């Protein structure tokens, strides 16, 4: 019955590995899932075969299944089922949709210490949103700027980044890599506003070398938006998603 226990444990591990995907909509990548499952299976096998009784308990049922006359029916079932499973796995693998091969890229490449835009060199250090200052001092004017930023967002950004700022705009399904969501704490909350400014202004073409291979569809907005407009839009995406930009000082 140790064999059943082993299969049961494997099922538990498999279920546990599926939990993030099924319950939290954060599925593990297949490559990681395979590795986790494989090594779990190995570790459990090792732990269960450390003693002779344990090993015998695992192996004996398998042996008797194949040589014990009283198991004819089970044997036939197993002999049919195993090839079927193999066939199904092979079929599923072959039938996979025509997806592009996986590509590893650096999501948030380290920024340059300075870049050229709007006809001058802009330093990253000390670069800050000029409108941030009035957030505390003049609430009404600040709301007005955020509203302007919102309008700019819906004129320019929303087609890809989505009406809810979740990266699920109309065009997003056609893009690889996907437009980043601003909601949640994974993206803009981890970045400084200056970084966001740099990414908007320089877009996909301005990505540094380490971020290759990017096929990013993000335009370099310096050609289409003024500096002011970019800062206002930045205000809006932070405000709407209730994120604060990352700061290094405590």
């Amino acid at each position, binding site marked *: 019955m140790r064999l059943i226990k082993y299969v049961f444990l494997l099922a538990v591990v498999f279920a546990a590995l599926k939990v993030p995907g099924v319950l939290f909509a954060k599925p593990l990548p297949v490559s990681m899932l395979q590795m986790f499952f494989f090594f779990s299976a190995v*570790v459990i096998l090792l732990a269960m075969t450390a003693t002779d009784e344990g*090993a015998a308990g695992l192996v004996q049922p398998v042996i008797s299944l194949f040589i014990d006359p009283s198991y004819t029916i089970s044997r036939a079932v197993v002999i049919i089922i195993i090839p079927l499973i193999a066939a199904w796995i092979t079929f599923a693998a072959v039938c996979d949709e025509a997806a592009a091969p996986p590509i590893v890229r650096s999501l948030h490449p380290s920024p340059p210490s300075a870049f050229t835009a709007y006809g001058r060199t802009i330093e990253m250090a000390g670069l800050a949103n000029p409108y941030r200052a009035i957030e505390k001092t003049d609430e009404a004017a600040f709301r007005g700027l955020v509203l302007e930023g919102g309008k700019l967002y819906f004129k320019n950004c929303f087609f890809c980044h989505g009406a809810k700022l979740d990266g699920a705009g109309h065009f997003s399904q056609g893009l690889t890599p996907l437009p980043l969501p601003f909601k949640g704490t994974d993206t803009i909350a981890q970045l400084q506003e200056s970084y966001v400014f740099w990414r908007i202004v320089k877009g996909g073409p301005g990505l540094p070398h380490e971020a290759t291979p990017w096929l990013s569809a993000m335009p370099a907005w310096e050609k289409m938006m003024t500096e002011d407009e970019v800062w206002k839009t930045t205000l809006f995406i932070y405000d709407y998603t209730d994120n604060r930009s990352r700061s290094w000082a405590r």
Partner: protein
Amino acid sequence: MFDKKPGALNKYGYTRKQNSRLPGATVLALVLLLLFPVFSAVAAPTHASETIQATQPSQAIAADQNAYAPAPQLTAEDYTKVRGVNPRLAVWFAAQMHLWFAAFVLAVPIFVLIIECAGVYTRDARYDALAREFMRVSLTAYSFTAITGALLLVALVVFYPDLMKYLSTIFGPTMLLYALFFFIESAALYVYYYGWQAMSEGVWKKVHLLIGLALNAAGTALMFIANAWVTFMMTPAGVDARGVFDGNVWHAVHNHLWHPMNLHRFIANIAYGGSIVGAYAAYMYLSSRTDEERSHYDWMGYTSSLIAVGALLPLPFAGYWLTAEIYSYSQQMGINLMGGVLAWLFIIQAVVIGALFLAANYYLWCGMQRGSRAAQYNGYIKYIAFVLGACFMVWFTPHTPLIKPTEAAALGGQFHPWLAPLGLMPAKNVAVNIMIIFTYLSFLIYRRSNRVPTVGWASTGKAVQAALVAAAVVNIIATGVYYGYFTNSVYKVASSVTQVASTLIVITGCSLIEYFMHRGAKETGEYGWGRMPARSQYALILIAVSFTWLMGLMGFVRSALRQQWHVYSVMRDASADAATPTVAYAARVVSVGTIVFMAIILFIFWVAQLGGKGSRHD
């Protein structure tokens, strides 16, 4: 001073590596004869070189015909092309083979001497027999080291003639020294092995041990000299920017990576020797027919695996030193090592080392069954396994895993929000420290499977041990998580120091308590050497295979670090193969190499078995 044409072997040939037995003497004589012209050529301009530093190099060269030439600027035409042969692959393969054999023949005497000393110290005749047996079965490996060394030399001279010419002008004297040490090593080897019986009593035994020490010293010196050549290619010293040699060989030898590389390879050799002997014992155990043989080979496998794993544990620290020196020589090289394409190679390394840990633990768990009190401790195995498994998985999780576009669509990003933190260094440090502690726990319960403490404070001692382990684990996790993720990255390094410290405290503290607790402990029943299941022996074989494969892979990293240089920053590789290959390609080359090497090792053991049957009890 140089011949332009390749093929003038006497100037720079026969100088690289060779270890040989019977042909050794003839080769040695040839080497000595052929090296003299090189030596005298090299010795002559040493005085002139001082003027080079004092004045402008170009003037000095014009003024002094004997001065050293700068490193040649090669073009693609300077390389020999042989149809159907990839030069880089040929040299890579030959070098890898030679390295494995050299590591093996250096490791065996180290291992054998340790065992022989253990025999003298414990007065247990089994150790002596084991040491002698292993010396016997590995004798053939010396000729294979020579053969692969010759292959490597031929490949280098044929495919990279200018590089060899350049290196031999600088390292000529060390090549002579190499020949000298080789002579000493061969002599010591013969006396050590053939004099075993004659020098087995009294003072003579001590003389025998000293000869063994001389054998090891000569072998290690050989390795150090060869290391100097290799590390010079990575971190050249004693040459100026154009590769003009300053005439002082010591400068070139004593380059940045020489010491770290010496230490790292020395420790790795001990571990490697232990693992190969373990695999040999495992195979012999599996094919044993009598109980006596079984108990002998079981004990041999246990002893050697203990040495292998014991030497494995300090290896990461030597590796840290090596890496730190690479960074201090050239930050560029260091960043290439850890941050670029090669970063994935360290994920592969993590998997292989994880497999080594699992195999070592499994062997200990199976080994517990030899003792009569094993049943009492079997229950702990599953918990240890769980912790090891969990840590192992943290260890190989990359920050940005291989992810399909459709999966990225489902996740909304290129990395998994829960797995990404596990891909960072603090998580790895936590994982590896806990893995070491739990491997040590496996060893503790293994030892207790046959002993009952008789001292009165035994329960207190056990409680203190448990408290030590618990405190260390809490400390490792807490500092790792806090410093790794919640503070400035400046403190990350500081946290790893306290983690390693707590690991070491646990191991030494628990070992001390264990020692005093079980001093004079009563052993429960006859210890069951030879009572090991067959499956446990495969753990030993896995350790040896994994070690070999990993050595090949890490050898590739070391060499790939030079990028498009023969001698980093001094002599550019202009051949078609100057670019670094992919990790997958390297893995395939290493795998084929491992298979060939293992096949030859099998052959060596088989040959030894043929000869050993008659003379087993002489």
